[in-house]
């Protein structure tokens, strides 16, 4: 993923707050609101441990779970490498894994997660097509890379192999996704940017940056290479060794020529690079743009002709979940898709799995701005009350269908991933 570290502080607080919420709830216990279908009194004692990449690990969600469902959700936010590591090596340390689809491709074969029965998921039919048959609209084409639907289904509850159809057993329930592109400083560039190839334009020598997370960075690189007209990949999401060598070769040369000011690995690094003017064009994540802008510095999430690089995350269940905990987990998932969380996330600029439900929790103007790409009628605030955009602003890239419909590739894990990772390491060291 993508927006991984920014919520680190929040997560620590979320644990504290979660604890406080738990205490509060214990004091006034017996009052369970919301719509739990399990009426067992002991659900209050259930604690589900969720870990993930921080984007959706928000203390507000844990507090709302306590309020609506009555049980405790403990959250831990880690960076995407640590998330992968934990999902792969410590299956007993979590109940719910909030991971990205490419991480799912990596860790599913370990057998540490169990598939979900879609018949128990009330809003399954309303989940956006991207996560089911891969198509946003019936006409849309499927982007390259690890597209979510390719790793969304298995044959049965303990199936190891992904299947190519909606089998009724889902690996991850989508929570959050977005389309990423390059961030630029329009005030320091002073001309329109239209293509990915601008990242390697010598004009920005010493002022460009790319992220140092191989699975995501390689896709940004592929977008640049194609945009430069150097090569057309049969499948960017699954390169051959030669293609990997060629791609990284082009970037190594650029690095040696001093094209890059720095590489970044965490959200806040990217914000600092951009805000300080060290870098004027770089791979970036949507909330990082907001963070730069909130400092009063102009920064644009530039839509590009070649399209977006997209990512998506979802929640999966640990194989050790059973009984009451498993019921609670299904309860949680149904609640997740019911719209409150979706609205909460969409008001930060992400998309939710069931937008039509999220709409119920957003104002007309918020829905128009975030989802439909309309000009804001009043100030647009995020869920924390901070003004994100003034009246009249239009979202970079337009509506949901404009943005998600222009996805050129997904963050990916390739067959030659190990080779790529080693070559990536060499690129960083070169």
């Amino acid at each position, binding site marked *: 993923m993508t927006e991984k570290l920014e919520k680190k502080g929040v997560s620590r607080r979320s644990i504290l707050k979660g604890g406080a919420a738990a205490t509060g709830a214990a004091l006034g216990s017996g009052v369970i609101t919301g719509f739990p279908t399990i009426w067992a009194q002991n659900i209050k004692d259930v604690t589900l441990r969720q870990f993930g990449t921080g984007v959706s690990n928000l203390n507000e969600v844990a507090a709302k779970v306590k309020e609506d469902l009555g049980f405790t959700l403990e959250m831990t936010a880690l960076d995407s490498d640590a998330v992968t590591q934990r999902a792969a090596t410590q299956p007993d340390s979590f109940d719910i894994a909030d991971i990205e689809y490419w991480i799912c491709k990596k860790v599913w074969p370990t057998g540490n997660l169990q598939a979900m029965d879609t018949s128990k998921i009330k809003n399954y039919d309303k989940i956006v097509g991207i996560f089911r048959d891969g198509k946003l609209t019936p006409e849309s084409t499927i982007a390259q890379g690890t597209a979510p639907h390719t790793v969304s289904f298995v044959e049965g509850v303990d199936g190891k192999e992904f299947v190519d159809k909606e089998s009724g057993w889902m690996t991850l329930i989508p929570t959050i996704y977005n389309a990423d592109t390059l961030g630029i400083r329009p005030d320091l560039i002073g001309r329109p940017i239209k293509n990915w190839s601008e990242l390697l334009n010598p004009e920005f020598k010493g002022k460009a940056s790319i992220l140092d997370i191989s699975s995501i960075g390689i896709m940004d690189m592929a977008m640049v290479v194609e945009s430069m007209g150097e090569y057309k990949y049969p499948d960017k999401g699954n390169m051959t060794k030669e293609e990997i060598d060629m791609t990284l070769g082009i970037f190594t040369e650029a690095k040696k020529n001093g094209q890059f000011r720095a590489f970044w690995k965490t959200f806040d690094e990217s914000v600092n690079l951009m805000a300080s003017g060290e870098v004027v064009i770089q791979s970036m994540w949507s909330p990082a743009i907001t963070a730069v802008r909130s400092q009063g510095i102009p920064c644009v999430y530039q839509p590009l002709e070649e399209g977006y690089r997209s990512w998506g995350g979802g929640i999966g269940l640990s194989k050790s979940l059973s009984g009451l905990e498993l019921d609670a987990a299904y309860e949680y998932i149904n609640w997740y898709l019911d719209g409150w969380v979706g609205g909460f996330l969409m008001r930060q600029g992400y998309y939710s799995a069931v937008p039509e439900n999220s709409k119920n929790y957003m104002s007309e103007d918020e829905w128009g701005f975030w989802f439909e790409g309309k000009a804001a009628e009043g100030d647009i605030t995020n869920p924390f009350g901070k003004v994100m955009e003034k009246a009249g602003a239009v979202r970079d890239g337009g509506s949901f269908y404009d943005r998600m419909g222009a996805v050129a590739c997904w963050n990916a894990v390739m067959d030659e991933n190990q080779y790529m990772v080693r070559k990536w*390491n060499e690129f960083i060291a070169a």
Partner: protein
Amino acid sequence: MTDQSHLFIQSNAISTDQKKSKRTFHWGRLPDNTTGWLLSLPLAFVLFFFLVLPIAMIVVVSFWGATEFSIYPAFQFENYEFLLTSPVTYQVFWNTIKYALVTWVLTLGIGFTVAYFLAFHVRSLTWQVVLFLLCTIPFWTSNIIRMISWIPFLGRNGIANSTLISMGVIDEPLEWLLFSDFSVILAFVHLYTLFMVVPIFNTMMRIDKSLIEAASDNGASGFQTLTNVIIPLTKPGIMIGSIFVITLVMGDFITVRFMSGSQKANVGRLISNDISLLQYPSAAATAVILLITVLLVISVLLRFVDIRKEL
């Protein structure tokens, strides 16, 4: 500052303690060498479980294989083969050694000067203690904070560049101030000079002042006293400081990552990248090679001075 010297004669102190305890605590008719073995057992256990075993484990794992998400036991040379045939490895090892060498030279120069000033120019013990404590104050904040605070200072629009520009020294901001070898080494020197100051100062304080008087009585110039008396007698301190600095720099990865903006690499970063991508065997192989390199460097250093004898 005799307190300081205790640090380095601890080993002697311990052995006398042991002898004492042997006298007061009777082990019945156990022969002397059995007692010796028994006494060394706890330490041997600690070293075995927390040093030998982990290292053995690393060596074993370095021959294993790895998939995307798991490692499996095997005996294959693939990790070493990839490591030793890649030109990048040599470049990275060279980088690591370069950082260590340059940092060593600079910290030694600064550390020796500071220690010399404290030991021989500051006459009163109180002031020596005060000034010495002053040197340690930066260590009250975290390593990372001290390192990261350089970034806004050295940046393109940072204090250093804007000051130089307003003074008219330069017209364009200096790009090489940040995210370069320069900034990495600057941070290393800043972080590790104290590790040089402390042991050198400590040995200097133990130099018998009458030796220096004797040197000047015999007509030695200040410089001759320095090269013929002080430096030879300070060697153990220099060696201990050097070992600290060199091992710290060679094992570091976070300083290199932050101060070079992830653009430069040393062996530590190679290992940390591997680990974060679940490539434990490959990380283990790199660690083994690094361990061998560091041990070689230290053994070369120890050829120059027999620390045990000097202490």
